[in-house]
């Protein structure tokens, strides 16, 4: 029972991070029908920027007093900077290829990804060594449930992710801007005829997807402390799992991305806890294969025949 609950807590915390990252993949796919491979790098940059800002405002690890105000400052800085990064990537790398075949854009995305990973390793940026994230948020047991400690930090991680997801859900389904996004994702030329500024909507999509990834980066750094160097495979693997979450939930579907994130978190952690911890990645990809075989449009995805 204890193990079950502990696993549940862990998987929800990680699953909500996957969900946050998956949102960026799924929104860009929904609008441009291409997989933005550089998205996991935006997540990585979000984590590293959080580290840089935290160190700048707090000094080294031990000396930072946990403070919600500081944590918020770090989070917002990371989100704003990554938003700008996402905007720039789209503007410089993808927009010139708007009319080009998808494969060209895909290859460009891989190029952008490699560029960021290598740029990030420069000494004056993030460097090529792992670093410990200063503790910005108190990490103490909040309450015990059937012998399982629920940590304040886990609650903050899940809570922040949930708030951001709700915010995004509201933007997409409750605002005029969101209606524009959904129109562009259905048909860019028709949306343009309605007076929707298509290029601006695409920019905006990259910006909010990148903000969500930055928030995930911040939460990841706060929870796991150790930041591997920018080109480390940890980042790629996390990004890949988030991508799997987007596909499993139904690529292009925002609520699907959130659901997929949680599902992947659950499968990974329950597999690791009850089957074998060495195969955790295998479970995730096995689920991907199963979904692609039996429900290729994803759990919440609709079959793609609806386009007129």
């Amino acid at each position, binding site marked *: 029972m204890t193990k079950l609950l502990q696993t549940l807590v862990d998987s929800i915390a990680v699953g909500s991070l996957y969900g946050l990252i998956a949102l960026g993949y799924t929104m860009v796919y929904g609008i441009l029908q291409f997989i933005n491979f550089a998205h996991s790098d935006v997540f990585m940059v979000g984590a590293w920027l959080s580290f840089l800002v935290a160190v700048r405002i707090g000094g080294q690890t031990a000396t930072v007093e946990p403070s919600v105000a500081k944590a918020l400052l770090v989070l917002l800085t990371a989100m704003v900077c990554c938003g700008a990064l996402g905007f720039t990537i789209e503007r410089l790398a993808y927009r010139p290829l708007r009319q080009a075949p998808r494969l060209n854009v895909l290859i460009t995305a891989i190029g952008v990804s490699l560029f960021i990973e290598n740029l990030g390793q420069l000494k004056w940026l993030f460097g090529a060594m792992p670093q410990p994230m200063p503790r910005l948020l108190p990490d103490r047991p909040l309450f015990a449930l059937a012998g399982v400690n629920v940590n304040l930090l886990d609650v903050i991680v899940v809570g922040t992710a949930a708030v951001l997801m709700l915010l995004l859900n509201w933007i997409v389904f409750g605002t005029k801007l969101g209606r*524009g996004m959904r129109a562009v994702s259905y*048909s860019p030329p*028709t949306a*343009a*005829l309605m007076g*929707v500024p298509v290029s601006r909507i695409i920019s905006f999509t990259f910006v909010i997807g990148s903000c969500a990834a930055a928030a995930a980066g911040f939460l990841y750094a706060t929870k796991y402390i150790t930041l591997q160097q920018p080109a480390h495979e940890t980042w790629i693997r996390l990004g890949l799992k988030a991508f799997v979450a987007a596909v499993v939930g139904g690529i292009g579907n925002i609520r699907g991305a959130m659901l997929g994130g949680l599902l992947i978190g659950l499968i990974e952690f329950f597999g690791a806890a009850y089957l074998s911890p060495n195969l955790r990645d295998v479970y995730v990809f096995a689920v991907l294969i199963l979904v692609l075989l039996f429900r290729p449009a994803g759990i919440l995805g609709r079959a793609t025949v609806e386009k007129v």
Partner: protein
Amino acid sequence: MALLEIRDLHVHYGAIHALQGIDLIIEAGQIVTLIGANGAGKSTTLRTISGLLRPSAGTLAYDGQSLIGQPPHEIVRRGVAHAPEGRGIFANFTVAENLAIGAYARRDKGGIARDLEWALTLFPRLRERLTQSAATLSGGEQQMLAIGRALLARPRLLLLDEPSLGLAPQVVQTIFQIIRAINAAGTTILLVEQNAHMALQTAHYGYVLEVGRIALHATAAELAASDRVRRAYLGVA
């Protein structure tokens, strides 16, 4: 001054020379029809006016100002709305959302509400179905939605691409009556049709497009009476 004035307009799709120097004038307040066979370049003309396509040569002046190089959303803002061929309904939206997105370029809440009311008065069927998914509408209702949605942009010039396509004759009659009502309320209309019979009955003036060139133009009554049009487009032997 004409509301729309097109001079020597050329449009290419890669190597395909779809419009080969057309001239077309639309006087404010009129219904002008552009008829022609499938593939003549009618939709291309509309897509060029609304900014989806960039002409390779020629001029395109709306209300005395060039539209060339303007993005589509800016052209909508200036008062040109385009109900595209095949209707372009957002099947992932409700009927109400489809109508609302037609007003995307506007900010005048009161005006939008008035135009919505007017569109629903013209198309009462849509009022009954506001909360329904647009995908559940019949073809005729979808065409009504496409026109109603275009009205939400409060156009001075309304571009309609084959509104009768695939509809039963009765529904076509209804749609054309409403087109006349919209025009009577002051909106200038460029009506693209393959149904030359209905189009010439409805329009004031007409252009005949043949493989990328204007073959004929005259008042609708004159065109309907001309041998050439009767033989090629009205099915009269």
